[in-house]
């Protein structure tokens, strides 16, 4: 009987043949914490009588969620993180370096076959590199820091086969929103998602990250893709390290196999206040917005900024709209500057904030007011997510966000794309 990708990666890390529903204790290749979770992990580390981290070269903390610090409470937590990393001798990515889920892939430390835990639910993003990476809480993070190991229930897998070709103006964000709407917010709970098919193969590496990033929004533990030339080309920009790709066996056992033809897909939006509350953009077009957000670990990469700039070039955003841009990393920011993308965005009226999470999680950088509507490229639209439970958040692709920023209402981006 064959194995799925995740069964193989876990087998390679636990020294036995791992099968769905078994519990294994596995070696981890990389461990990450961010400023929302690391401080509590430091407390747990001490409570566990931790002395050193298992391998300082395989561990990093990232200050991205509230960066730079908006108040003294957060400043104290950031300081705690800085001191801990200095004492234990491992890397900290400080303010302005970027969002954890962009930085860890860019570090070249993670690739096909890796096993990663991160104390952030969107750690599943690296599945786009054929790695099993998953989110854990602070106590698990502390356990991982100390032991370099973690226990897992080997998940069953749902295979998403995406056939056909995305039409112009329709992006990987639209596809993943559609899939989440289809399987629902808990349709893949405790499971792994494998994304495959010609529509996935045709995507750039950056577009693939968007899909893997949102696996958690269907409840999944991981969202994995096979590695191909696109993957290795992307990785070669960041590392010389060789990774061995992990493929699913032909006779692997799946909990479900779902086939889609993406050719007729329209741009999609997730309506408030649930990520699986998905509709084609035509259904909500015309809804006035006051704030637009371009960035986050879902869609803050160079390609995303380029797509938005392509639409905003030579145009101004609507006078009643604020457009907030947070590049996903310093490298993305620099590349976007070198290409003139940032110039275009700023000329159109965008406010660029520090690279990192931006206003995604409601701690700073653009908290909406009561009764306001936001359209964002982020991955969550829960009530209060951006810091105000009386605001509404719609999720969409960078193209839809850019188009909506111009018109001041939710807009099908194909209006601006020839």
């Amino acid at each position, binding site marked *: 009987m064959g194995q799925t990708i995740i069964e193989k990666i876990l087998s390679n890390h636990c020294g036995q043949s791992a099968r769905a529903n078994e519990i294994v*204790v596995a070696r981890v290749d990389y461990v990450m914490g961010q400023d929302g979770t690391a401080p509590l992990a430091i407390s747990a580390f001490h409570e*566990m009588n931790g002395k050193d981290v298992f391998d300082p070269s395989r561990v990093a903390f990232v200050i991205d*969620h509230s960066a730079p610090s908006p108040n003294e409470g957060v400043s104290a937590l950031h300081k705690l993180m800085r001191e801990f990393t200095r004492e234990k001798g491992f890397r900290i990515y400080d303010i302005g370096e970027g969002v954890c889920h962009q930085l860890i892939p860019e570090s070249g430390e993670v690739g096909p076959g890796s096993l990663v835990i991160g*104390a952030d639910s969107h750690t599943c993003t690296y599945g786009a590199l054929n790695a099993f990476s998953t989110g*854990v*809480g602070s*106590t698990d993070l502390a356990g991982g820091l100390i032991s370099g190991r973690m226990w897992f229930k080997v998940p069953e897998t749902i295979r998403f086969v995406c056939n056909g070709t995305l039409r112009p103006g329709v992006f990987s964000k639209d596809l993943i929103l559609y899939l989440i709407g289809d399987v629902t917010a*808990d349709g893949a709970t*405790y499971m792994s998602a494998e994304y495959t098919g010609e529509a996935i193969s045709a995507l750039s590496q950056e577009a693939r990250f968007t899909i893997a990033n949102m696996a958690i929004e269907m*409840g999944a533990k991981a969202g994995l893709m096979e590695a191909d030339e696109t993957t290795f080309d992307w990785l070669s920009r960041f590392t010389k390290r060789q990774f061995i790709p992990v493929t699913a066996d032909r006779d692997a056992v799946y909990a479900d196999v779902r086939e889609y033809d993406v050719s007729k897909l329209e741009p999609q939006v997730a309506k408030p206040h649930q990520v699986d509350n998905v509709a084609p953009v035509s259904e909500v077009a015309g809804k006035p917005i006051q704030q637009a957000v371009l960035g986050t670990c879902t869609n803050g990469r160079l390609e995303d900024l380029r797509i938005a700039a392509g639409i905003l070039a030579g145009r101004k955003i609507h006078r009643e709209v604020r457009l907030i841009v947070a590049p996903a990393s310093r490298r993305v920011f620099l590349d976007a500057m070198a290409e003139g993308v940032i110039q275009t965005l700023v000329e159109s009226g965008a406010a660029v904030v520090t690279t990192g999470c931006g206003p995604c999680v409601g701690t700073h950088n653009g908290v909406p007011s009561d009764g306001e509507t936001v359209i964002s490229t982020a991955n969550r639209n829960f009530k209060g997510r951006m810091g105000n439970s009386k605001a509404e958040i719609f999720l969409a692709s960078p193209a839809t966000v850019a188009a909506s920023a111009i018109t001041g209402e939710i807009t099908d981006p194909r209006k601006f794309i020839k």
Partner: protein
Amino acid sequence: MQFNGKAHKFGNDVNTDYIISGKYKFKTLDMKELAKHVMEDLDPGFYGKVTAGDFIIGGTNFGCGSSREQAPLAIKYADVSAVLAKSFARIFYRNAINTGLPVVECDTGQIDQGDELTVNLAAGIIENKTKGATIPVKPLPAVMIKILNDGGLAAHFREYGGFNFD
């Protein structure tokens, strides 16, 4: 472990932003302070309505969303004795066990707001005293029972210096 208390009922997909909003969790490591804001976007003033030992009752997918461990901790520090739901999101479920908040999978359709419950975790039985009914409980995986019995993952590590499930 046996708990007695009242049911505070919520719907499906109660996410971690509702349990404790990001705007509070980033500010402090003082869990007692965070607990004052638990569930406030769904039920303003919820903290004041809880009597020690009460239960939070959810539908499906309780605790979906972020990996913030402040979510189970805020519930625990609000003196809620356990969360009962039809199903849980996986990171929340792990975090709850790791931090010693009992989470119980069961058919919460048989529990209404304000019902008086007795939950016996060892025996795996929930008694709904208001309705005079018993509700069966889905048992936890052995690894989780071990962690709970050890007093949470930190205590487990103190005892064994690492993971030990043999």
